[in-house]
Structure formats: C-alpha cells, structure tokens
C-alpha cells in the first residue's frame, strides 16, 4: 500500500504517472515563467505541453487515457495536475477590471475542457495534429479573461510546423 492507500499495482502505475507528470509540469512551468503578457505565456505553456505529448504517443496515451482506468488514487493524482494547470489559467483574472467577476471554478472548467479534448484526440490518434487544434484550446483558455471577441483572434494564429 502507498501513503494514499493505493494497492501495489496502482502504486506502480502512480510511480510512473508521477514521473511523467513531473517532467510535463516542469516543461510547462519553464515555458510559462518567461517574461511577457499572460496571454503570451499561456501560448508558450500550450506549445510546451503539446510538444511533450507529441514526442511519445505511448507516453501520452498512458498519461492522458490510461489514468482513467487506473483507480481512484490515480484519478486524484490526475486531478491535482489539472489543479496546477488551472492555477496558470486563473492568473488571467489579473487581466480583468474586476478579478472577482470570474471565479476560480472557471479555470478548473477550462483545464477540464482542455483535458477532455486531449483525451478525445489521443484516443482517436490525432495528437500529432495538435498544431491544428491548439488555437481552439487557447481560445477557450483565454475567452473568460480576454472576452469572447478578443479570444477569437487566437483562432487566426497560423499553425507552426
């Protein structure tokens, strides 16, 4: 049993999962922590995450898809990772005249929406075309903070190849 009560098989899964998560979070954080506007930093973080997932499709499937069938502890670990990404999104509230007008819950919904989209794309074997749908994810990520009209500009960003 692990500290959080996971059985041995799940514990092995969690060890591998946490290693991948640590590397992904490190890369995303380093991309996000560069000087610039919040909006540019979200783009940088998005690119970093997408490249990480594209590098190794088997790793991406393990990390995004297989975690769902790995037990309740694994899902709790996954939820903690999503909360970390929600932090980056929630920083967008500083862009608003009234930061209290958007709740923290909004960032959690967006993080979940992005995760759900990635889950579907990986299940369908489409993550190699991440450049095509990344603008839509950034649109969704920035929309509550920049407003729907300004966020639509993200859709005009040309995919980098």
């Amino acid at each position, binding site marked *: 049993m692990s500290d959080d009560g996971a059985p041995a098989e799940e514990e092995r899964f969690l060890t591998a999962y946490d290693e991948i998560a640590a590397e992904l979070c490190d890369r995303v954080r380093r991309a996000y922590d560069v000087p610039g506007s919040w909006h540019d930093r979200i783009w940088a973080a998005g690119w970093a995450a997408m490249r990480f997932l594209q590098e190794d499709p088997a790793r991406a499937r393990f990390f995004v898809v297989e975690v*769902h*069938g790995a*037990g*309740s502890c694994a*899902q*709790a670990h996954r*939820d903690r990772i*999503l909360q970390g990404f929600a932090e980056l999104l929630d920083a967008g509230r500083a862009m608003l005249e009234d930061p209290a*007008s958007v*709740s923290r*819950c*909004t960032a*959690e*919904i*967006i*993080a*979940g*929406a*992005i*995760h*759900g*989209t990635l*889950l*579907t794309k990986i299940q369908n074997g489409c993550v190699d075309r991440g450049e095509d*749908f990344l*603008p*839509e*994810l950034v*649109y*969704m990520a920035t*929309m*509550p903070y920049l*407003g*729907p*009209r300004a966020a*639509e500009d993200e*859709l*005009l960003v040309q995919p980098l190849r």
Partner: protein
Amino acid sequence: MAKGAAKSRRKAKAKPPLPVEQPSSTPRLPAGRHGLPREFIAQNQRERIITALVDTVAERGYNNTTVANITKAASVSRRTFYEHFADKEACFLAAYEMVADHIRDSMQAAAGAFEEWPQKVRAALATMLHFLAGEPALARLCMIEPVAAGGEVAARHRVSIQGFVEILKAGRPEHSGERPLPEATEETLVGGIVSLIAMEINAGRAEKLEKLLPDLVELTLAPYLGAEAAARLSRSS
C-alpha cells in the same frame, strides 16, 4: 448496499425520480415455490442485478468489480446472472443506459419548458446537476466509471454526451462575433463540464454539484452571447 452509497442517499435533500429500483423497494423473492409469473421473476431478478452492480461499482469501481461481487450483492446465482447478461460489461451497459436515458429525457423535458435557447441550456444543466447531486452512486456510475471501463462502455458514454453537444449547437445563431465559433466549441465546452463534474465526484463532493450551476452556465453561454450577457443570465433564477 454499499455503505458510502447508502450514506450519500440519506444526506440527499430532494430526491429526483429514480431510473433504477432501489434495494429498499426491490423485495427479495421468497425461497422455494412462490407462484409468481416467470416474466415478473425475470424482471425482478434483472433489476436486482442492476441495483447490485450500481452499489458494487460505487464501492469498488468498475475495474475492481467482478461478476461474483454482483451476484453476491444481488443474492442471485451466477447462472441467473448469465441468463440476463452476457458479461459484466453488458450488465454495466444496461445500468448505464437506464441512467443516461433518464438524464437525457429529464434534460430535454426541462429545456422544452423554455422558449429561449439560453434558458434551455440553463434548465438542462440545472436538471442534470440536481439529479447527480441527489444520487452520488449513479453520478459515479455515469460520469466516472464509463471512462475507466473503456471499450464499448466508453464509446457509449461519448455518444451519450453528444446529446448535450446538440443542445449547445442550437445556440450558434445567437453568436454575433465577426468570425464563426470554432468547430469544436461545443465538444470542448461539454468536455469541460463533464471533467469538472467528475473532479467534484472524485473529491467526494457530488452532493454539492448544484453549486457549480452559475459558473457552468456563464462559461457555457459566454462564447455565444458575450461575457456580460452570460454573467447576467447565470445569476438569474
């Protein structure tokens, strides 16, 4: 019955109509010759097995649930189980379809009571959250376990979710932006809604799901109506 599920049900304030007969209202058949029609017995057994699956999955999760766990909880023989279902997945699908159909019908009925699209969306979301909050075991069954189960169950879940995608797509004429909304807007929104609900259930907060309604309504309507109108509608009752 699973202790967690029983406790959750006791705490529920307003119970929505149930799609699955609960153990308290599903009497155990008397042993021996009871003289009941075979069709009634079969239906009763089938409901008992489904009820047992719901409770067992709530307690152990789909992947850790075995047919033996289900038959023991239902007090039926393995042979009886296989007379009704080909395997565990078929039994789960039967339970899932009952719950998913009930949620879909309830959401459509709630939305149908309004003329305007934004109110339809709000009513549909409110109805779904109300049901899931009142039935944490069923919430887990239809929002967490299908993804964990994978295969045909997960595929059926994706089809089920499409129902709400269609409700949202009906709002595209409301969009007044210069450019059309991204093709995947509805799938992304529904993915976010499902994910947040799943996180709340995983965190043991299923009974508080209804508190998410204003935030979910605001985020869902914003791409179509703009931020201000979405915020205003999210706070309307």
